[in-house]
């Protein structure tokens, strides 16, 4: 589960970097944007499930430190709440930063 979480995390970072570049360009092919958005959304759902399962497994094996991952389940929703289209690049950067942090923590659990 931990390995899967790491892979999904890396993919999410890459996807958001592509989004970040496009948000700076402001010009994007709608069909590509649709596929990217869909892929991003699917990854995000898997990411949440992986983190929650990692926390649950952590509890089963008495590794209560995994509880810190809960922070990364909540932050995308907090960022989403405050994000606005005008400041999309800034908020995408914040999201990427949180993903890098979660990746670092996941690697530490290995």
């Amino acid at each position, binding site marked *: 589960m931990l390995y899967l979480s790491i892979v999904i995390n890396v993919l999410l970072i890459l996807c958001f970097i592509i*989004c970040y570049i*496009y*948000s700076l360009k*402001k010009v994007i092919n*709608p*069909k590509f*944007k*649709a596929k*990217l*958005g*869909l892929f*991003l*959304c*699917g990854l*995000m*759902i898997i990411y*949440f499930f992986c983190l929650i399962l990692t926390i649950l497994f952590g509890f089963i094996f008495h590794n209560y430190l995994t509880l810190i991952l809960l922070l990364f389940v909540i932050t*995308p*929703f907090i*960022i*989403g*709440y405050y*994000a*606005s*289209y*005008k400041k*999309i690049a800034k*908020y*995408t950067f914040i*999201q990427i930063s949180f993903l890098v942090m979660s990746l670092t923590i996941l690697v530490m659990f290995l």
Partner: protein
Amino acid sequence: MSDNIDIELLHNEITNIQDKKAVLLFHGLTGSPFEMKKYAHFLFDKGYDVFCYSFPGHGNRIDEIETVTWQDWCNFSQEKYNLLRKSYNQFFVSGLCLGAAIAVYLGEHNNDITGIIALSTTLFLDGFCIPWTVSFLPVALNTIVKFYYTFPEDECYGVKNERTRKSLAKVMLKADVGMDNYPLNCVAGLLKLSKNVRKNIKKVTCPILCIHSKYDNLASTKGAKFVIKNVSSKIKKYVELDNSYHMVLYDNEKIFVMNTVNEFLNEFVQQKELAGIA
């Protein structure tokens, strides 16, 4: 005449003040007054003053539609309604897709509307072209993904007639007649508006005509049937089409749609004339 000039013509209001009867038209989501052009000219030829404005954020760049909310669309329509209503004895509102939802919204908040004509009312996104990925919406809407998620325009353009579809595809490429995708934020706005309209539907008391295709690719007949079932209007009429998709004003049954609208409008004009004679 180029397409752009025609759009300007609609923006500048086709007026014929002495008749004192008018129709305020609303276009669909990510569309523009261009899609109401034929309908507007049809109504104008029948003696109605026709007004059709572009919704906030529509008809321009994608950036602008991302920054507007459904309340902006409602406030805009209400403003236009307030501005125009006092000049006319008979005032109808009509719309397609989002426009139909807005027309019903106006009906809920204004008791002095003579009649509503709702075409392809979109209160539920459940047409046969809606992808299964729409179930991802709750996650996308609450995260930053909402700004990166979009629904590209379906290849059928909401039109069953292949010839019309091809010409629409060409027009979409060369003019500012609409967007080629539906940003998620915008779809979310439509869903919130639909929820609000459904909640207050009983407040509609004016006569209403709903025209909806059985094979609408974006919204099934559920929305239109919901409206007809729940409005408090004494006069309500539901017409179902069976050879069109969502864009009923451009599809195989466009003439039937316009004639049905004309019949509905004429009922009021005749009633008014009879009342005058009496």
